[in-house]
């Protein structure tokens, strides 16, 4: 009863236990990732990375791999999958030679493995591709894979039985052989799922996490630009209406500022702009706020010339300025609030952007104030490795500092192109 004993050996998962036991976390990752692969929800081992997952496109389509990472293609994935499968086959065959004293039985089972496994792999890959093309749910895809594997395994078992009968080898009974083929195929279905889907799925999760971030920051950006947010817009219009009779020139100036901001809001989506442009935008924004809070708010600017042509994520500094006004300068008792915006290069090639206010500090910062700052942090960490964002606050005021390595900044023209490409895809 060679195959039966083989099976009982295998039943204890002897051959693949090393894979299974030594790297259980990968198995877990694999399973959750398989789900994500098929479009349910990504739950990355490092924590949830994306709350919303767009229904999956054919993941083999070039943009999934190319647009962000460009490192992995379906080809390499298949190669990797095949290698893993081969190793599994070799491991199992080797173990059998070692464990089973009867060499002929070992040869039979090795030959069986060598034929059955590639057939299984090809069939499962085809099923997988079909599942992706048809965008079926992950459960149905898994069931389909399992079914295909089961069918092939059953046929394989019967063939094995026929072969052993034909050549008069000692073999299992028909039902045992069939059962063996079935469970064997399910086993390999599991391995296949790990080998093929896991590398793809983790990569896909990463790609999607990046794209989700990108989407989020685009949304963020439009929110920022809509700073031209309706409240801002309506209050500014009201202020202008108030100035018309008394100070017509001031009213005209504000209308021009507002016009510039509106024009900018209607501009194409470029994710980056130069520091010069950023500061010009902020100055108009500030001019409006100063006029609306006359006597309580004053802006100071100190922008190093050498930074003016450097590219920055658009309106990166706006939340800092808004915070400094809302939670800083305007909270100062008795008026005289000031906000200073500075940009300069410091020592070891670091560009610093500092927004400073003379408010009462932010010990009790309200919840909604942190939202904008969080977006600054996120945008920075996404685009500039080695960048830093910090907020220091005391009774004399609050200083928020964005620090970006100078080298990272000079590359941002290329980043612009990449950003546009992703946004377009």
């Amino acid at each position, binding site marked *: 009863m060679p195959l039966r004993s083989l099976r009982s050996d295998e039943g204890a998962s002897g051959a693949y236990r090393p894979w299974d036991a030594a790297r259980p976390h990968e198995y877990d990752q694999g399973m959750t990732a398989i789900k994500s692969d098929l479009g349910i929800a990504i739950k990355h081992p490092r924590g949830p990375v994306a709350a919303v997952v767009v229904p999956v496109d054919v993941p083999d389509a070039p943009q999934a791999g190319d647009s962000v990472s460009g490192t992995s293609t379906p080809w390499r994935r298949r190669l990797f999958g095949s290698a893993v499968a081969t190793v599994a086959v070799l491991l199992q065959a080797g173990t059998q030679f070692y464990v089973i004293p009867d060499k002929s039985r070992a040869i039979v089972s090795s030959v069986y493995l060598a034929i059955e496994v590639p057939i299984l792999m090809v069939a499962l890959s085809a099923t997988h591709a079909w599942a992706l093309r048809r965008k079926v749910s992950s459960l149905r895809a898994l069931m389909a894979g399992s079914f295909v594997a089961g069918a092939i395994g059953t046929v394989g078992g019967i063939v094995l039985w026929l072969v052993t009968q034909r050549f008069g080898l000692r073999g299992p009974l028909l039902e045992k052989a069939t059962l063996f083929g079935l469970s064997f195929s399910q086993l390999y279905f599991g391995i296949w799922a790990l080998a093929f889907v896991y590398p793809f799925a983790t990569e896909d999760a990463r790609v999607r996490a990046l794209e989700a971030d990108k989407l989020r920051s685009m949304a963020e950006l439009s929110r920022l630009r809509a700073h031209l947010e309706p409240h801002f817009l309506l*209050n500014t219009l009201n202020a202008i209406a108030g100035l018309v009779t008394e100070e017509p020139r001031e009213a005209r100036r504000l209308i021009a500022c507002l016009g510039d901001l509106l024009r900018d809001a209607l501009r194409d989506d470029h994710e980056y702009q130069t520091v010069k442009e950023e500061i010009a935008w902020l100055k108009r924004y500030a001019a409006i706020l100063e006029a609306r809070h*006359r006597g*309580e708010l004053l802006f100071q600017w100190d922008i190093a010339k050498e930074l003016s042509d450097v590219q920055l994520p658009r309106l990166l500094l706006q939340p800092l300025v808004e915070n400094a006004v809302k939670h800083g300068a305007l*909270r100062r008792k008795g008026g005289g609030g000031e906000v200073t915006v500075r940009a300069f290069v410091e020592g070891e090639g670091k560009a610093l952007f500092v927004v400073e206010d003379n408010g009462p500090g932010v010990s009790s910062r309200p919840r909604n104030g942190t939202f904008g700052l969080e977006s600054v942090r996120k945008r920075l960490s996404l685009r500039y490795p080695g960048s830093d964002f910090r907020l220091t606050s005391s009774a004399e005021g609050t200083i928020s500092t964005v620090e970006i390595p100078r080298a990272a900044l000079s590359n941002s023209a290329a980043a612009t192109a990449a950003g546009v490409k992703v946004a377009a895809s």
Partner: protein
Amino acid sequence: MRADEGGRLRALVVEDEWPARNYLVELLHGSGLADVVGAVGDIESAREALRVESTTLGLDVVFVDVQFAGDGDEAGLDLVRSMTPGPRSPAVVLATAFEKHALEAFGLGVVDYLLKPFTEERVLQCLLRVRERRASLVPPGTVPAPSGPSRIVARRKNRLVFLDSHEIWAFEAADRLTFVHTVHGTFDIDLSLSAIEASFGHAFARVHRNWLVNAAAVKEFERDGNETHLFVGAGLSDGGNGVRVPVARDRAQAVREMLLADTAGLRRV
């Protein structure tokens, strides 16, 4: 339109933005239905003004902005919530960019709301509504006598001061701020000269683009070549307590005539 039936409504404006505050004061006064007795720029001052006014003449209506940049997005609503309702307590009108606050506000007993940007028509309509509401609340006959000279709210740092108009010498606009010079010293006032002139300052004379003067407090008129100055205060310029006010060249003659109008002693030229 004049408020022929009943007196003018005594109004307090609570609005953190300078142009919006002036605008509303102008509109309120322009309607002829209301006297603005105070205009403050933050919630704390508003509370104090409400407290003080409730012990004196009382207010008919308070205009409250919903959003205060320095105090929070709904600080105005918090103020309204904290106001104790009563037959003598003032009607509340909200100023807001969106109606969404209005729904909640009506639950708080708010009489009306003004959407930004404000318009003359809407303010008028709102004041009529408030007046109607007040008339139905207060039985005829008990309506407070038409308000006398209203008091003016100014501030020094965090302190509010309430001034009778006879205590005031002059209002000055300087460096985008407005000051009021009084017997008690100089204070900040959260309104533009035009808004003051339009509301509680109608007894004052605009002698210069930046100066609004209490004619009754003028002590000296001095012409020196092309320059004309007034001395306003207690006592005369040599040793007296007061401020020296420039007079615009094109207004000098009119100011002189106004000052001389009810005087005797100087031969008219």
